[in-house]
């Protein structure tokens, strides 16, 4: 259905350098009206930078942008907005301290005599949410809603009546299957109305579900573009990685359980009112336990209860056979329990600190601040982690905030691993991580296990859980509803338990 004569928007010869990094080099991108265009590439390939240039959030060093054949100047986000280019960024959510209404109407509130009419602003907000079939209280602060709802609100904000180009940078990273399907339904409607849509994701399944065409970036260069039908999965992956895939799949193959001995960490009737119903759960050394469940089923809460980030009001936690009376994150870290949070921006990383400093944080907390690690030792450890996880950064001293989204996620992981924990709790460890790195992370998880680490992995990706887990606990509505082990762990089984049948 696409009219290919003049693309809706064209980026020609775009280049961009950051200090020490050539983020984009002579990149071309063409989007037709009424198509969904997937922009793919490894972590740090330059995807987010490219769309930030298109939307005026980052100035370009060289290149031209044409909208419907005419060259346009896009200097600020407001320019892009005025031209009908709407964006949902990867990193930004909205303003958590403000209400949903205020977030949805910021800078475009309806006014009378110069003053904002909040009554009409509320109506406008509700109308925007209605397009996404979202019914929430618009007067509550955005921060009181889940990440998924916040994401949908961000999309609702981006969509305008005059939107000609819609950019979605990893919009589905925090959505569960139903929410993703809802989003895709909306994307299809928008596409039918002639909007050009850029879709960045690391979920290849979703690419084949929704994209009409694909462009692939590698190390800041465009390495391929074409209709989805002409880019089968393997070809696509080797384009992205610049090498044959072969090995990647092998790592995801099944494995034997390495679990042994008494539980390292065990929860007995642990729970907190209105947060998570009391549950039993144990982790043994060398074992990976998966936590499955829909968004909002209590995965994160379970992880935080075990780590001590949420204080329980019932039950007890047993570590190495000894009850832990008052658990706190600090105490957990000291006794060898580490936690990788899901929302790296809000809880995980200190963006201004360097990669090395971030990696050292947990380790230093564990050792106590008086026993400082030497600088050379720090460097060596950081370098080791950067290599092990293939973190794309020019050196260990780069501020974490300047890394690409997926590489930030890897730093969070590196930080927990550096403290050499006995128990590691991972909440959505592979969100925003590309296929190559995904395999690296899974491989690393397996290796750690064989060295006697106990792992708890909370994830919304069932395939990932099936691939890594020795046991899976299934949650529904903030309650543990089942547990399965060994050969019983299949996608179908988990789904059946989640559905309660």
């Amino acid at each position, binding site marked *: 259905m696409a009219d290919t004569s003049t693309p809706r928007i064209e980026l020609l010869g775009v280049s961009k350098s950051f200090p020490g990094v050539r983020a984009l080099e002579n990149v071309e991108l063409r989007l037709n009206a009424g198509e969904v265009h997937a922009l793919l590439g490894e972590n740090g390939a330059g995807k987010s930078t490219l769309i930030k240039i298109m939307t005026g959030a980052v100035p370009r060093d060289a290149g031209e942008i044409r909208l419907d054949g005419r060259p346009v100047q896009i200097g600020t986000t407001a320019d892009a*907005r005025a031209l009908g280019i709407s964006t949902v*960024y990867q990193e930004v959510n909205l303003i958590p301290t403000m209400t949903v209404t*205020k977030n949805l109407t910021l800078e475009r509130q309806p006014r009378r005599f110069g003053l*904002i009419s909040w009554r009409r602003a509320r109506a406008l907000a509700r109308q925007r949410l209605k397009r996404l079939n979202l019914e929430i209280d618009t007067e509550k*602060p955005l921060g*009181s809603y889940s990440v998924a709802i916040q994401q949908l609100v961000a999309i609702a904000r981006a969509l305008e009546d005059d939107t000609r180009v819609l950019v979605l940078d990893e919009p589905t990273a925090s959505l569960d299957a139903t929410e993703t399907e809802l989003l895709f339904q909306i994307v299809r409607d928008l596409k039918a109305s002639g909007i050009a849509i850029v879709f960045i994701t690391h979920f290849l399944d979703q690419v084949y579900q929704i994209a009409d065409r694909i462009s692939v970036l590698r190390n800041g260069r465009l390495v391929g573009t074409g209709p989805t039908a002409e880019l089968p999965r393997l070809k696509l992956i080797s384009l992205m990685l610049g090498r044959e895939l072969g090995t990647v799949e092998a790592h995801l193959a099944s494995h034997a359980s390495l679990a042994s001995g008494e539980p390292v960490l065990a929860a007995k009737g642990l729970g907190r009112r209105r947060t998570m119903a009391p549950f039993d759960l144990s982790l043994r050394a060398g074992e990976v336990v998966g936590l499955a469940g829909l968004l909002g089923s209590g995965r994160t809460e379970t992880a935080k209860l075990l780590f001590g980030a949420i204080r329980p009001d019932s039950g007890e936690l047993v570590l190495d056979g000894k009850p832990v009376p008052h658990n706190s994150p600090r105490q957990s870290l000291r006794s060898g329990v580490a936690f990788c949070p899901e929302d790296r921006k809000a809880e995980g990383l200190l963006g201004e600190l360097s990669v090395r400093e971030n990696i050292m944080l947990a380790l230093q907390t564990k050792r106590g601040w008086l026993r400082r690690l030497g600088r050379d030792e720090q460097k060596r450890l950081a370098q080791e982690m950067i290599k092990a996880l293939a973190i794309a950064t020019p050196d260990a001293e780069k501020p974490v905030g300047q890394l690409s989204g997926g590489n930030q996620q890897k730093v969070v992981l590196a930080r927990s691993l550096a403290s050499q924990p006995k128990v590691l709790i991972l909440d959505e460890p592979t969100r925003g991580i590309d296929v190559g790195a995904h395999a690296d992370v899974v491989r690393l998880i397996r290796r750690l296990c064989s060295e006697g680490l106990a792992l708890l992995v909370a994830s919304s990706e069932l395939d990932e859980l099936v691939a890594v887990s020795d046991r899976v606990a299934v949650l529904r509505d903030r309650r543990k509803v089942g547990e399965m082990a060994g050969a019983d762990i299949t996608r179908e089984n988990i789904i059946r338990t989640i559905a309660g049948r």
Partner: protein
Amino acid sequence: MTERYLPLMATVTVFLALFVTGGVLYEHFFSTLVLGHILADNAFIIIAAIGTTFVILSGGIDLSIGSMIGFVGVVMARLDTLGWHPLASAAVLLAFGLLFGAAQGYIIDFCDIQPFIITLAGLFMLRGACFMVTLDSIPIRHPFVDAFADTSIPLPGDGFLASSAIVMLVVLAGAIAIAHFTRFGTNVYAIGGDRASAVLMGVPMRRTTVMIYALGGFYSALGGVIYALYTSSGYPLAGTGNELNAIAAVVLGGTLLTGGVGMVAGTLFGGMILGLIATLIIFHGSLNGAWIMIASGVLLFLFIVVQRSLVGSFNLRRSS
């Protein structure tokens, strides 16, 4: 909905509690007379603090307030000796305050320097300028000053609302309208809530930052005008340290120092709480001025602790 008003409610509750305590302890305390005095005495600081509220809501800080109050006073007094009408010099000085603040805001945004440093420089420059104008206290003798002092609105009971308090309430109403019913006001909250997001959501950073500090400069200049009229003089050391009182009033008023959360109306009560403490201690008689500061300090500390826990519970709700 109610969550938003929680800090404001806390401030109002503390204010009422202090006021009632005074009423129980001392005869004649619980009256509109005392209330009117507190309003009049603290009008200038509350006015300046209203401007600071915007600055703090945006996640910034303004340290030049006290010097601005002093500078405005001495220039008004000097111009008075040259035969200027106080209203004329006030108009000029308000424009000056606005421009001075705007310049501070521009430098903060353009050079991307912490507001703390820039406004600290402003503090020194303006205080230095005070001493350039005069080293002594200069009286303002224009008849308008007496007329201003004599104007008041009677309150029920035996109290009255002095002209300085009237000006304060009028500009407070204006500030509330700006904060809650203009795009600029909402943008201030957005910048304080999450700066990076605000940029990507299309908030014009330069313009908003300039306006925030311009507003801060304007309100502190107005505070200076009111102070000069109220004391009918200009003194080069006047207003020293008042930036800290203003910040204290804002924080007691329930605004978070980290920005993004708070209300302009709270600042009125925050300022009045500070005034009430001073009045209570003066009523007590045997306690000296040192206790005013100690009590204010303790209260400020308690308030920050309470705010922390409020914010903490908010975050918890967010994660669950």
